[in-house]
């Protein structure tokens, strides 16, 4: 089982998608099949955390077979970092299917096929331990996502899809160049082998800086880090709901995952040398994203910019090289997936009713849609980082890590707490509070049972993850420590009087 489980989880959706392609165009059956598949995948993926030996730093459930030539392997494995990202992915996809239930009524089959293909690719990205395989999956996420945006998006969908595709594509070729270079000089694509080669000094230091940058660009665009973020608002605004959910929930995490796994994992020295400016970009991202979010007239755009801000926290955490910072960063990845995923799902539900995301069309919706408003509030609070909600734990750890590393980082990063509250509450107010300006809004339907079913899991997860964080961090921590290569800075344990002297 544990040999096959990763393969199964990775390719089940794709296999299902292939089967669905051959199925007749009966929308109801297609939807049902997609839901079933994604749920089965989710169920299977739950085996991972259950069987995972937590506390072990290395990779588990490994499977390693020769694929192409002598050096390209089909090598999958999960550690405490990727484990949860996979589960996050499989968790969000069924929700994505549910929220697309009614909103997608044209080319339904294609939609769900693409969605499932995307799922496979995303899972593959997190599980690949062969750099070549990783790149393959990495690029493979691109097409389904671009098509989802371009085929099922809104008015400017083409612009957004092309922009999304090109940004990522252009950036990832640098990563490809770096991967090839590494292969040529280490004779291997295997992550662990390359890591070993670099750490033992078998690759020249001059080259490492360039390789670091090659990987960095690819991931920075995906995160997205300021100033490479402008594709994100467009992509989000135009994407269909499920697309936005997965884009924000998982695809962006691929960037931060890459930064952690490759930039930090492979190049610990370079990561530390480059940390100052990367952290600076992350902090700019936090503040900048928040400030721009503050003035957006469009619900989805606001959430998109909030992602820029939130992912800034993650990058900040990763590049603090502290226990708290990196643990928090990984945890924040999961949190952001849940909370922003929820926000996008909610935004999509509103769109189904109003066919717009502009704030001026909303206002006072808490009266006609109280249940919806409540779920929205939970998502907002989770995003704001209210204690006992998931967002807080990650944010707190990241910021305390940043503070330990450098007080200025901590202080600047922490201002994000203020901005976050400002734009999210502003958003909430614009949508739900105040008098109802548009009469047609009085008769808006509150969310139905299906929509509630899709929202309950995220709402519950947001709470559970806010209260029971050690459950996750217990597995994340050893992996993060192992990944960092060098000992991470530990929090001062000296609770003595001379602590500060």
């Amino acid at each position, binding site marked *: 089982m544990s040999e096959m489980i990763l393969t199964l989880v990775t390719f089940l959706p794709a296999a299902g998608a292939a089967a669905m392609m051959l199925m007749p165009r009966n929308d109801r059956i297609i939807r049902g099949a997609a839901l079933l598949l994604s749920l089965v995948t989710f169920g299977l993926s739950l085996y991972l955390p259950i069987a995972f030996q937590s506390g072990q730093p290395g990779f588990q459930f490994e499977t390693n077979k020769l694929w192409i030539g002598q050096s390209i392997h089909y090598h999958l494995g999960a550690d405490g970092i990727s484990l949860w990202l996979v589960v996050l992915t499989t968790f969000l996809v069924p929700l994505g299917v549910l929220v697309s239930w009614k909103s997608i009524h044209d080319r339904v089959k294609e939609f769900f096929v693409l969605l499932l293909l995307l799922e496979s690719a995303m899972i593959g990205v997190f599980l690949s331990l062969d750099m070549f395989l990783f790149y393959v999956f990495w690029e493979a996420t691109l097409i389904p996502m671009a098509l989802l945006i371009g085929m099922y998006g809104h008015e400017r969908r083409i612009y957004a899809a092309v922009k999304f595709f090109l940004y990522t594509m252009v950036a990832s070729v640098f990563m490809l160049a770096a991967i090839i270079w590494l292969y040529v000089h280490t004779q291997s694509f295997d992550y662990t082998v390359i890591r070993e080669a670099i750490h033992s000094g078998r690759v020249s230091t001059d080259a490492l800086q360039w390789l670091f940058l090659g990987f960095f660009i690819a991931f920075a665009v995906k995160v997205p880090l300021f100033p490479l973020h402008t594709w994100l608002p467009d992509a989000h605004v135009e994407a269909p709901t499920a697309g936005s959910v997965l884009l924000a929930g998982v695809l962006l995490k691929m960037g931060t995952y890459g930064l952690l796994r490759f930039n930090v994992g492979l190049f610990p020295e370079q990561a530390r040398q480059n940390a100052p400016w990367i952290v600076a970009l992350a902090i700019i991202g936090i503040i900048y994203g928040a400030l721009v979010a503050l003035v957006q007239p469009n619900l989805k755009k606001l959430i998109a910019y909030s992602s820029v801000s939130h992912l800034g926290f993650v990058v900040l955490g990763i590049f603090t090289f502290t226990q708290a910072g990196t643990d928090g960063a990984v945890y924040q990845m999961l949190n952001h997936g849940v909370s922003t995923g929820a926000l996008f799902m909610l935004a999509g539900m509103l769109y189904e009713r109003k066919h717009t995301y502009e704030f001026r069309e909303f206002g006072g919706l808490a009266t006609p849609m109280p249940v919806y408003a409540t779920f929205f509030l939970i998502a907002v609070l989770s995003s704001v980082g209210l204690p006992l909600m998931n967002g807080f734990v990650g944010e707190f750890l990241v910021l305390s890590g940043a503070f330990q590393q450098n007080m200025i980082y901590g202080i600047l990063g922490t201002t994000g707490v203020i901005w976050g509250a400002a734009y999210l509450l502003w958003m909430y107010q614009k949508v739900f509070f105040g008098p109802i300006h548009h009469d047609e809004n009085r008769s808006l339907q509150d969310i139905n049972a299906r929509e509630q079913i899709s929202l309950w899991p995220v709402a519950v997860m947001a709470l559970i993850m806010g209260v029971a964080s050690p459950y996750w961090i217990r597995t994340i921590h050893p992996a993060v420590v192992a990944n960092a290569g060098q000992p991470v800075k530990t929090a001062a344990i*000296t609770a003595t009087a001379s602590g500060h002297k």
Partner: protein
Amino acid sequence: MTDDTLKLWLIPLLPLIGAAINGLFGRRFRNGMVAAVALLFTGASFAWALRAVILGQHIGLPYNKALPFDWIVAGTFNVPFGFYLDQLSTVMVLVVTGVGFLIHIYSAGYMSHEGGYYRFFAYLNLFMFFMLTLVLANNYLLMFVGWEGVGLASYLLIGFYFLKDSAANAGKKAFIVNRIGDFAFLLGMFLIIQNFGSLNFDNVFSAVSKMSPETGWGLLTAIALLLMFGATGKSAQIPLYVWLPDAMEGPTPVSALIHAATMVTAGIYMIARSSAIFSLAPHALEVVAVIGCLTAIFAATMGLAQTDIKRVLAYSTVSQLGYMFMACGVAAYSAAIFHLMTHAFFKALLFLGAGSVIHAIGGEQDMRRMGGLRKLIPVTFWVVTVATFAIAGFPPLAGFFSKDEILWRALQAEHGGWILWTVGIITAGLTSFYMFRLWFMTFFGELRLGQANHGHDAHAAASHSQGHAADHGHGHGGVHESPWIMLAPLVILAILSVVGGWVGIPHAMGGSNVFESFLSPAIHAPAETAAERGSELVFAGISVGVALLGFLLAYWLYYLQPELPSRITARIRGLYALVLNKYYVDELYGRFFVKPLLALSTVVLWHGVDQQMIDGTVNGAGSTSKGIGNQLRRIQSGNIRSYAAWVAIGGAAVIAYMTWAVIK
């Protein structure tokens, strides 16, 4: 794990269960059911708290127990779900559950005609949960949970009438302003983590206690200042007090519970809790004292001109919180907590009384339209009278003792004690004046309900009356006394406002200051310097005199010659406008922080950087590429001869290169 006899975690958990039940299913409940659930769980919480307090006295305080699972773990750093009961939290937990329970009862009546009944109680219970978490936490982060959580509850409750823009704005403002404070609180915690590796009170304070007082600006001062800045947000001190007056948009019981009795005192509690740190950071204490003292007088002056009954009380609250801050600043933590407690009684009473008044006259909040209610709602009148005299500082009511304690301790402060005292005493006078102004305007003279607006302040009045017309849409046949479910809590609170101060009668007045000695194990404060009995009595006399002065002035202006104030205000129009408009602080904040920030975000960041610089660059690169492409394509002239020329020149180049290569 040894057995957890007190099960402190039940105290916050019970209201949370209530909140969850009402929140999830309340929509389908009848109002009575909703109220029953809310009261049951709050009452149970109160009962359990009492049990814990009593048991705690037996098994000895402090009692510190964590749940078997941690909340946050990251490497060596961990934060437990730990609960802590000592004398300080005893006081707080009793005040919170007790007053909270009373206000729940009151609300059951007050809110009975409102929409969203279940929502209200769910929020209120949620508030109780967070507030109790705040006071019972055994570490800063869990305290922060409560800290932020009460902010959330406050946000929700202020925005309860969310159809009004003003209410929604006020809620948002409260949350964001509080977040600014929380920002500092977080930084303070980071400093603590960095230096002490833990956020548990035990660890931190035991580490701190081994340190010597800082003479200059050191680590402890920094931590203390950051924590203090956090407290200024929650406790509505300068410069972050601006949210509290606006918070009066919420239903009146909310104002009573959250914005008078409990939540706003969290800052005071936090400083008192951190007394170990503050006591070693004298500079930070000085700052606390100055801020408290300034806030006290500043808010009091603003209270003078307000015409909205709840706003007067709000400024009064800010002012009283300033007192408590000042007390903390002179290391008189127990005095601060004492005042916190008595204030909780009488200010809650005042708010509830005001609510009863508003309820009685159909939602009107403008005092200029009240008057003569003394006879119409006698019970309300009497309880408010008690509270008014209490806050004004007339012995032997609760306010007298606590306020006197603070002033006395301020006078003894190391630096600038006289100044603090002087400001404090002036504030006391002002407080007395505006409270009696309120009292006279509301209960004496003629009922002016339905009279035309006075010219100025039309905006505020209009928005309020409009709002409440909607809220209290149930027609009032006439002015009527509130039902007993509302009056009973008032009476209880009135009694507490009378007797509440007796636990802290100073030695000078023949008491034994039970309160202070009770609290002392939980507080790291320098021992009180022994002062002569006589002078303490003299100063107490002065403060009573000042209170009397305020009363007489109010009596003159608002009872004897009610037309006089408008003449006076006409004479000093500028100053009056300044005070009436709260010194234009909100406008200043708007002008200098909010607007520039929004403009910066929109014009510079969004349009400028995002759209023009970044997208512009990218799109520019795109169109440049296309332009280059179009230029390059012009090679493709379609003319065969030119194509051959390319082949020829290419061939020439190839031959030239290779000839050169081989010769080289």
